[in-house]
């Protein structure tokens, strides 16, 4: 009876929430008060898949859903909701029968890496895919190993883990457990580097013996082909591997079979290998069928890279996640653009907390902006950003500190080329700056 009431309450609140444009966590949260452990009472007719990790979980979850649906499976997911327990509860309770049956071949759930251990107390997933563990916002996670410990607390017997062979941190989930593991990896390509180009590398030392870890190449951060000369720790042999990347064509081979994707970023190719590994393992479809479906998956890049016109120039908004790895990707994105370029960096206090320590600046490789012709800094922490850029040896002649949003025009008039605006939700006055920009 409680389950029935919880489902009804959740659906009514969800319906009202949609009408008034509210978030999707609350209905689930309230259903959980009505019926604690509500997820435990659901009956899944299909398999439960959890997708977690620092970066790439949304894209990977959407791609997995797409591949499975294209192959004729029924899938429910939480793509419209939050990836914490409340949002997941809302997704499942609005997609089950009134008796609590989840009638789908697959429930594909993107889940926050800190919440997995709570979810598994109620539902044992059949598959868990861990994309990677990178340094996140410090207030969330401190360092990836702290998150790793939390994920390890949620290891359940019978679950198959799909793990990143190139990531020496996240793969530690497999240490000391008997669960089946399927490994995915990306091979060396023209974008891999011999030295780490990112601002952070969380595996400079071997997690087993603390001696220096050697890399044949890096993809980004500590993700790459590594080995320890002291104790022998190294990349496991991949069951699914992406090779022969051609970035101009967004194509690669996965286990030797060609696939042409809709987006050319390295991380997107990683997501495609991970999604293929998961779909083939969980559903038994052939690699060819998985890849054919992956080819038609559209990431919706436009949301991350929106374009407006400013002073008659092309102006692209680059929205980042709140972690150094994500900001590093945006730095590289601008660094790769053609000259001349103007970069506006919006630098503010931490989102929500208004904390003034913007430590993450020091975990980002702003050094890679050296060739960018013009940089304009705005926001409350603009001088801190200027100090960071000075340390990165950015020529001070290239940097303007804009003290007031209204002065943006005069700052921009001294610059040339396409404009890129780097902002993330850690910052707080991006709306005002964007408003000013749109006025110009």
């Amino acid at each position, binding site marked *: 009876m409680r389950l029935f009431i919880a489902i009804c309450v959740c659906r009514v609140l969800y319906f009202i929430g949609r009408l008034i444009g509210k978030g999707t966590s609350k209905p689930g949260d309230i259903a959980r008060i009505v019926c604690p452990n509500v997820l435990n009472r659901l009956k899944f007719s299909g398999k439960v898949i959890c997708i977690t990790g620092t970066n790439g979980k949304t894209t990977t979850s959407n791609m997995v859903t797409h591949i499975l649906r294209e192959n004729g499976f029924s899938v429910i997911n939480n793509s419209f909701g939050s990836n914490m327990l409340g949002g997941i509860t809302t997704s499942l309770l609005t997609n089950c029968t009134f008796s609590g049956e989840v009638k789908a071949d697959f429930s594909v759930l993107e889940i926050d890496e800190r919440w997995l251990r709570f979810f598994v107390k109620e539902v044992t997933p059949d598959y868990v895919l861990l994309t990677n563990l990178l340094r996140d916002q410090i207030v969330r996670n401190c360092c990836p*190993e*702290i998150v790793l*410990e939390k994920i390890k607390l949620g290891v359940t017997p019978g679950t198959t883990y799909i793990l990143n062979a190139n990531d020496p941190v996240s793969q530690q989930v497999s240490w000391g457990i008997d669960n089946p593991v399927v490994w995915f990896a990306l091979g060396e390509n023209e974008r891999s580097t011999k030295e780490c180009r990112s601002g952070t590398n969380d595996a*400079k030392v071997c997690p087993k*013996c*603390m001696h*220096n870890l050697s890399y044949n190449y890096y993809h980004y951060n500590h993700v790459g082909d590594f080995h320890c000369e002291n104790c022998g720790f190294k990349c496991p042999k991949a069951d699914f591997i992406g090779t022969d990347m051609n970035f101009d064509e967004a194509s690669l081979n996965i286990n030797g079979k060609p696939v042409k994707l809709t987006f050319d970023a390295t991380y997107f190719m990683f997501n495609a290998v991970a999604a293929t590994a998961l779909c083939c393992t969980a559903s038994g479809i052939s690699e060819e069928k998985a890849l054919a479906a992956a080819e038609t998956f559209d990431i919706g890049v436009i949301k991350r890279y929106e374009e407006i016109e400013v002073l008659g120039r092309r102006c692209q908004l680059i929205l980042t996640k709140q972690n150094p790895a994500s900001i590093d990707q945006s730095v590289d994105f601008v660094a790769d653009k053609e000259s001349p370029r103007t970069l506006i960096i919006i630098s503010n206090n931490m989102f929500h*907390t208004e904390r003034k320590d913007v430590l993450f600046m020091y975990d980002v490789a702003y050094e890679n902006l050296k060739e960018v012709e013009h940089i304009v800094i705005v926001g409350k922490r603009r001088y801190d950003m200027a100090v960071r850029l000075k*340390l990165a040896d950015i020529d001070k002649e290239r940097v303007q500190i804009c003290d007031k949003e209204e002065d943006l025009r005069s700052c921009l008039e001294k610059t040339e080329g396409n404009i890129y605006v780097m902002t993330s939700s850690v910052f707080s006055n991006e709306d005002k700056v964007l408003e000013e920009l749109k006025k110009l």
Partner: protein
Amino acid sequence: MRKIKILNLYGEALDLNGDGKNISAFEKRVAEMGYEYETDTLGVGDDIDVSGYDIVFMTHGKPHNVSAISEHFIKYKDNIINNIENGKVFVVTGSTNMLFGKSFSMLDGKTYEGIGLFDCTAEEFDSLYVSDAVLVPEFAPEEKMFGTYYRCESVKFNTPNENRLFKVIKTDEGKGSVGEGEGCHYKNLYATWCLGPVLVRNPLMMKEVLHCVLGEDYRETDFSLEEKAVKMIIDELL
């Protein structure tokens, strides 16, 4: 020409939240003053002797890494303590300070030995204490600095307020909070649980350390940008 020898001790294992940038900033100032420098990074694969260096940095590290290197570190306890007693300049930031206390116990249930230079013990807890801080340094009691605490250790000093590096005049409350006095200044060792780019952002502390290393060879350099940035933060906090 004078060459400054810098040691980044366990720099590969202790590398969290931009602390390593303190060393880059120090190197730049030394170069700007017209001196050469050479930086070595030593780790658990090396034998350690700090005597040949002008300054030793030990930066903030992940809790797991701090405990994992402790066994190696205490093998060199005598070398480290003797050099500190004889005036070697040390800068220690963040949780790495645990290695200088008597012992520290971690969430893995184990207790690790420190070199016992500080009369303190530490305990890791399963949450993070986060705070901006305004600090008055003991070496410049009329001035103010900005610090950042992110810690998952609570630290117990048996000798309260002796040799503290900072008087803490503003922080958030909560478990793991730092109390009124923080860090240690003993001979030429500067130790603080503040982490991140403490020296990069605080010209006051950078100058103090540079003076300490260079003595009469210290030359003025331009800190105006850094001074403006840190003043803005402190003004906002107070």
